[in-house]
């Protein structure tokens, strides 16, 4: 089963903690909007994505099963 990254943009306040952990996946643009560059959880990024989930002060990031 594939796992995908799910951001609640109503909760996100552009703190950028996730981008600091794994910029290949999370990117804040110049307008302070968060973009998910790659929404699939892979064996390569899984550990860092989970760290981003935990460290998000807003708890706006989740991993869901597809």
């Amino acid at each position, binding site marked *: 089963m594939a796992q995908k990254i799910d951001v609640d943009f*109503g*909760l996100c*306040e*552009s*703190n*950028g903690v996730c981008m600091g952990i794994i910029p290949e996946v999370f990117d*804040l643009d110049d307008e*302070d909007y968060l973009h998910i560059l790659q929404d699939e959880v892979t064996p390569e990024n899984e550990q860092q994505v989970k*760290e981003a989930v*935990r*460290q998000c*002060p*807003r*708890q706006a990031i989740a991993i869901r099963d597809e």
Partner: protein
Amino acid sequence: MTATELVFDPFSEEFFNGPWEIYRRMREEAPVYYNSEHDFYALSRHADVAAAFKDHETFSSAYGLDLAMVKSGQPAPMKMIILMDPPEHRKMRSLVNKVFTPRQIANLKPMVVDTIDRCFTAADLEHFDVVQDFAAFFPVEVITRMLGVPSDRRQQVRQWVDSSLHREPGQIEMSPEGQQAVAEAMALYYELIQQRRAEPRDDMFTRLVQAEIEREDGQKESLEDIEIAGFATLLGGAGAETVTKLIGNAAVTFAQNPDQWQKLLDDRDKIPAAVEELLRYEAPAQYNVRRSMREVTLHGVTIPAGKPVFLLGGSANRDPEAFTDADTFDIDRDRTEAQNLGFGYGVHSCLGAALARMESAIALERLLTFMPRYEVLWDQCQRVAMQNVAGWSHVPVRVVN
């Protein structure tokens, strides 16, 4: 069995003077603590506090932010985001949160630097109180300037906030002086709201006057005056009190840990890490009070529905299960070990975190320059006796040449 009864009383002298030993005993002996005198519960372990912060459906904010309010059992009478649950909380917070993103706050740096530097123009090396002459002054200047309070009224806001949060040992309710202070602050805010309606400016009062919010029935409406005044009261209060406490705590903590101060003197790039460690070691906000919305059983104790529950972030941040050598102040510690709860966690996590971080970092930077070597005059230090925030009102130092 324990030799002495474990009592956690957030309105006691013992608590105001440093709760660390009480916290340790709570984590070990009573992770779901019950206070029979005031009929409230408290969570103290990191895992429990973090989980409760995240679970806003079980631990509601809508009944108050302190023991007296939550005990009343009535939904909070004031309209403030700190007193709301989702979905209303989300709608209201989204009206202001774009002002406080790290990027927006970074744009304010010149203003914050200027405000902080003005504190030092009159500073006296022989008689310098880190709180009275410095840390109490600038945070309220910054936040009230962002709000749009005229410069001659800004320090008054701090006195009002101090007055409303002050508690004598054993005092749970706000004093008549505190209520008077709240009334005077509200009067000022109402006056400013009317002025901004007539004549918009580039400030947060104007932003809130012009904002629209979707109500429960789906209709879009402007905010009522009382909602805007609520925002101003909350942001002014949070902005005025917390960084003041953090910088006072910093002067004390670094004096007790001179090797850590030396690390900063040697490498100022460590200042942001030092701010994070100060937030972990002794956060200005030691606890948040929630209301249990359903029966919860944890560690064999059942919290009934409808009870005040203290979430002790200050204790969680000293939990040895979460942090190695949790009682050691170490600015180089591994910050990924566990979530630092100094700014809370989840939907109510500190709105002003980026501003607090920037103010604190600039303040530390200036203190390193102003007083690279200093001694605290311990016998003249005084702690505050307040609810929700902990720290010092007086930290006089002697700058050593």
